[in-house]
């Protein structure tokens, strides 16, 4: 399984979260939004010039700064 940072996922691709690393506040916010290892997400968009990345988890969308998105490792899901 290839691990890539969330920020390099392409628009429309689905992935499974493998791990994430950051300060307490970051970890806390991640888990409270349901962004935990094994969760399935889909990338919706990313803004120009390394702007925020938007992903879909369950029925909600979350925007994550580019730097934070770099610290979330995911594995692509290739077609179901």
């Amino acid at each position, binding site marked *: 399984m290839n691990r890539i940072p969330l920020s390099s996922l392409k628009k429309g691709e689905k992935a499974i979260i493998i791990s994430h690393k950051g300060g307490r506040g970051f970890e806390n916010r991640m888990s409270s939004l349901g962004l935990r290892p094994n969760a399935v997400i889909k990338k919706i968009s990313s803004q120009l010039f390394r702007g925020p990345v938007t992903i879909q988890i369950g029925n*909600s969308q979350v925007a994550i700064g580019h730097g934070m998105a770099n610290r979330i490792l995911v594995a692509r899901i290739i077609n179901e």
Partner: protein
Amino acid sequence: MNKILLIGNPNVGKSVIFSRLTGVNVIASNYPGTTVGFTKGFLRHDGMRIEIIDVPGTYTLDPTSRAEEVAVQMLDDIKDDEQAIVLNVVDATNLERNLNLTLQLIQRNIPMIVVLNFWDECKHTGVSINVEKLEQELGVPVFTTCGITGEGIKHLVESLEQVKVSTLQVDAENIWNEIGLIIEKTQKLSHRHHTFFERIGDASIHPFTGIPIAIIILAVSFYIIRFIGESIIGYIAEPIFDKLWTPVLMKISGLLGGSGFFHDILLGKLVDGSIDYVESLGLLSTGLFVPLGMVLPYIISFYLVLSFVEDSGYLPRLGILIDKFMHKLGIHGLAIIPMLLGVGCNVPGAMATRILETKRERFIAATLMAIAIPCMAQIAMIFGLVGEYGVGAISIVFGTLFIVWIVLGLILNTFMKGESPEIFVEIPPYRFPYIPGLLKKVWMRIHWFIKEAVPFVMLGVLVVNILYFSGVIQFLGNLAAPVVKGIFGLPKEAVGALVIGFLRKDVAVGMLIPLGLSKSQMIVSSVVLTMYFPCIATFAVLLKELGIKNMLKSAGIMILSTVIIGGILNLIL
């Protein structure tokens, strides 16, 4: 039971349910963090009087932000209160994520009820939840509601006595596994096609489609605001004042003999033998016309448009589009919300800076707003008065303020210690605004304006008269002449406007008219009046939000940049 805490994730509709339960109107919008403080109200049912507290939204009981700390503190406060219960409001379309907080609440062994809100939306989002099973799994009563239409609220109120302490044992380490099991047993998702709103939602957040969409939305909003504002002024406000009110005033003027102290205070000075609603400066002429005839129409149109955009869920998306740019100013994209609220009135704008996480961001956002964002009352006056000198003059005023906003942000971001954190927010779904709810919100905001602004305008007009009669204005004018005349190139009488600007900026702009200013003087004074200091109402809120030390710093920045910008404008115009 005498106390109910409404607790839930941000943007699940707690405030709407609060309004339904208590009849107390609170502002609710479609973005997380609308409720930054807490609101109390009372529910009367069966002869009981139950206190209801609308707690700011939180994702977790392990707080990471100020609003979340407030929520946890309030929960701690009721720990030993046997008469207190929790209503856990849950977004039914997002059950899995919401259950995290629900299970954390259950761990605390408090009597609670779960409310599945947005129940009506489940159908078209393809979510079906087995409520009875969910009740069994959680061990507390579960009710379904639709806050905005009020469906299910009555049933909920009648069933409050069923409140229970759950016996479910939750292991903190395993909370997500636990949630996974509950979801498997209670929720079914059916496949469905993208809804129309979701397609727009996705387009408005991709940079290549999103930026043009943002420009169109802002431009359309601007024209609608102008169209509604001008129509109300032209077809309603001015005819009422000219045809109905002027004759009354002229009669009173005749009775008072056409001049004198009381005449001037009540009606003001006659211009060419009749009332001039802007220049006369009487309590019953200018004191009523400025707030009701010139400003109110724009307040109505602005809040109609803003509330519509707010409730649609667009603002957080706009925030994400411009996030990268806003970071250069030391604030993140969501700071667009306090800025836009500040265009209506700086007071709610200053309060909304609380949605930003760090002190640094709040300081930058509050300072930029207070300096460079004129409120709608002032904008309306600038449009009405500077507008006579053409669109060019108006563009210079707002263009200058926009440049100040950017440059000052760049400077503050460079020289202030610390960093501003990256954005990390949930984006609400698009919703078509519920019109009765929207109109109620607009009405609350207008009502607030009339209640707060009209007395202050009257006070401002009264103070002007007293200051002129007593010679204080002339004295201050001489004192401030070096700055006002020397740097800004304005007549020394303009000092009167600066004094009154502290009370009301709209009246202050009106006071410039009798001075016979040139086009460039009018531009300089409009910019200076916006920047030099916030009005007293905004000042009071900023003082509370920033603390004395930071408020002094902020005020220093305001005065310094006003002198520099006013001086530069005077030199180049």
